[in-house]
């Protein structure tokens, strides 16, 4: 009797077990990996929750991964194991790899000419051209822009005025002049040095673009697949020399390759007068300056006044959201709908105010210039990080947030400023950055160093091409 009952119970359990997933099948679960773990991650979680609240059948789960490099590695390894998210944030340097790997569905192909996806409007034309251009591969819009930034200068105006500088430096020469003027403040112990900024390969890429120079051949890999490195240029030499001049005169505090925290801290705490950093640091630097109690002003990234081309423009940096391929059409649409929500006019504006990343839509800038009373669109989280402003025009209250948009807006879009794309981007960065570091710290035969590194990087690139390029 008990035996039969137990068997019935067992059959029932099996039936329920089979039925359970079938009942839950209506719910689409999406995982999205982002490379943030600070207030920017909080914003992403908050926005995903607002999206989840809009409908019952899609649930987006945000996952925080340490940094840009790690997210690419983890996704790559996950892909080998068959365990990866539907949505992943990939930074600019991974663009060519993302395309070559054949692991992603392109946004434009998912949208397939629709005006909206699950009720979320596409409105592609609204995206700022320099941004949509960067992430357009062979004429197809590949990924959804989210966090877009560009380097800008941050100046401690109080210190500059103390040194008798009234105009903010715009060029390399003006930075060096300002450092000469600031030297008395260093000597009397008011500050530690003139300038400090993260020693990142990203700035080298930017300065090449400003001088209308390519990093790799075939027009930065935009006209055809890049096959050779192009470091043997006056533009690259000039960058190395600028760093050497800054450092050997004691104007620059070097905190190590790719260390972003310490230089920013040096500036915020008033130990240096000049910081160069991502526009994405605008929020943190503004708050830090206010806390320490000095006046902050910003300009576009300083440029080489001696470059024959003058200032041409800057590349945009940051990352975009990619959708893994091989998903069910309904899941793919859900992912696309989420990303359209994630980057719509209101959220893009909110994201900008929360971080300093450039709004990716023109309509977001317009929205911020004409705020309705109460400014509900501004990011509101319990942590108290909310910015309450009186003005209708957000940029009138926070002019430093506009510097990045202006810089990108004024940039000429060509294949130098669209930035390089090639498969060994991540691998190569430490090489061309390390060369400049070596020359800055130790001097030496710059030409020989460049020849050597250029050959190494070209070899790596050709190996990559051999494994990935269509034959």
């Amino acid at each position, binding site marked *: 009797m008990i035996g039969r009952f137990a068997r019935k119970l067992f059959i029932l359990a099996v039936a329920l077990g089979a039925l359970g997933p079938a009942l839950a099948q209506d719910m689409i679960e999406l995982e999205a990996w982002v490379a943030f773990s600070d207030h920017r991650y909080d914003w992403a979680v908050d926005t995903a929750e607002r999206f989840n609240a809009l409908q019952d059948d899609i649930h987006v789960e945000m996952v925080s991964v340490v940094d840009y490099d790690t997210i690419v590695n983890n996704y790559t390894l996950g892909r080998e194991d068959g365990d990866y998210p539907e949505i992943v944030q990939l930074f600019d340097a991974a663009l060519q790899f993302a395309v070559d790997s054949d692991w992603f569905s392109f946004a434009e192909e998912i949208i397939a000419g629709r005006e909206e996806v699950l009720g979320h409007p596409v409105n592609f034309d609204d995206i700022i051209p320099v941004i949509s251009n960067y992430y357009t591969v062979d004429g197809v819009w590949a990924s959804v822009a989210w966090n877009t930034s560009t380097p800008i200068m941050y100046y401690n105006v109080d210190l500059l005025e103390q040194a008798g500088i009234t105009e903010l430096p715009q060029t390399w020469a003006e930075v060096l002049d300002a450092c000469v003027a600031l030297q008395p403040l260093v000597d009397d112990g008011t500050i530690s040095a003139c300038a400090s900024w993260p020693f990142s390969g990203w700035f080298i890429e930017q300065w090449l673009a400003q001088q209308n120079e390519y990093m790799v051949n075939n027009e930065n890999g935009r006209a055809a697949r890049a096959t050779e490195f192009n470091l043997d240029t006056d533009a690259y030499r000039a960058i190395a020399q600028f760093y050497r001049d800054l450092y050997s005169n004691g104007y620059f505090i070097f905190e190590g390759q790719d260390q972003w925290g310490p230089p920013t801290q040096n500036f915020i705490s008033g130990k240096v007068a000049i910081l160069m950093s991502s526009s994405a640091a605008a929020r943190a630097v503004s708050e830090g300056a206010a806390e320490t109690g000095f006046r902050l002003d910003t300009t576009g990234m300083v440029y080489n006044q001696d470059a024959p081309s003058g200032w041409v423009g800057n590349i945009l940096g940051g990352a975009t959201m990619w959708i893994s391929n091989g998903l069910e059409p309904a899941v793919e649409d859900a992912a696309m709908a989420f990303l359209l929500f994630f980057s719509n006019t209101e959220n893009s504006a909110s994201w900008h105010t929360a971080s300093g990343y450039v709004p990716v839509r023109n309509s977001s800038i317009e929205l911020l210039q004409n705020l309705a009373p109460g400014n509900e669109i501004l990011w509101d989280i319990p942590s108290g990080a909310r910015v309450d402003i009186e003005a209708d025009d957000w940029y009138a209250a926070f002019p430093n947030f506009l510097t990045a948009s202006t810089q990108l807006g004024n940039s000429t879009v060509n294949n130098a400023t669209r930035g390089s794309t090639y498969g060994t981007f991540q691998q190569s960065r430490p090489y061309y950055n390390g060369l400049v570091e070596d020359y800055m710290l130790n001097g030496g035969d710059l030409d020989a160093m460049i020849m050597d590194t250029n050959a190494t990087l070209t070899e790596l690139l050709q190996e990559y091409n051999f*494994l990935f390029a269509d034959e």
Partner: protein
Amino acid sequence: MEDIAYSVHPILVTLVGAVLGAGYFAFLRWQTQVGSVNISLLIGAIAGAAGATLLTAPLGYCMFQSDQKSEDIMVGWIAVALGLMLTLNIFSSLLWRYFRGQRLLPRGDTTPGAFRGRFGLVYALAALSPTILVLIFFVYLPMFDTLRFSTFLARFGAPRTRFICVSNFSRMLSDVDYHSNLFLSFALSFGIIIIAMSLALLIASMLNQPIRGASLYRTLLIWPYAISPIVAGSIFGLLLGTESGIVNRALDLLFGAKVPWLVSIPAAQISVVLASVWNVIGFNILFYTAGLQTIPKDLLESASIDGASAWQRFARITFPLLSPFTFFLIVTNTIYAFFDTFGLIFVLTRGGPTESTFTAMYRVYVTGILASDIGKSTAQSLILFLIVVGITIVQFRVGQRRVQYGNY
């Protein structure tokens, strides 16, 4: 086979192995004066031929083909040498056991009651199988993959790979950057091991004194070992920043001077060593504390009654009796210093300034994980593996003579 041109023909390679093997066995026969000369020569030649082909034949003797560079041929001979070391050792120990009339395989522990009877072997295997399976799937198969990938040009996510013989290895022969990475690994490891072990012994000796709250101190001192190298790196990053670091803040207030801990040479290397020492020292203290408690008190007391000074007691009694612990710690600390410090380096210095803290293991990480260039990085990791195996063998050889186990 006929249409491939060789600069060194496979038959010649095999012959060289056979001659070396026969010669080595003849030497052993002369040295031991045991067994038949002819059999020694025959088995020696077979072992030598097997050794010469062990690592070269699976690759089709590609490194000896005429289109290869001289570095590749050199790598080929190194592979022959490694194969010979392996086969000659195994064959000679077996042959001389046979000559001496011993069992070919040493008898294991034959304690009565352990897995005996008809199904003894089955039970034993069943009990061992979880471990064996874990070893197969998580150690031996990945190891085999590592061997295989080291002969390929390969990247994660790539649609194809390319067999490139031993180019990944021969490239390292001529790569001066890699040589300095290797040298640096040795130098930093040496510093880490010396400081971490001597300091740990000092602290453990102090902990061994009857002081109040010794167990609390012990816990606090061992605690850094529970922290992963990455976190240790972050902690030291906060401490050692040039402008914003706590250490320089203190130095500035006290002496008006700042040390660029992480961005100058040799300060960056010293910082990496100190951070690693801090990270691993808890482990050493743990073992030395345990070791000190095994030393019989009466021995020390009687020495003390006989007039031995504290230093003499330490040098003549304590330190020799601790030698098994010292030996164990040297081996584990070598492995830590070579393989586990890359996370700390990644956070602390990124191998800088100007690659002055770029160790060979950090190179493996950067090449394989950050750049997905797995062919090169597996080859680099095999070199490191061979080095650490080599060091460990040397340590065991030296250790067997110096270490005193038990029986006091």
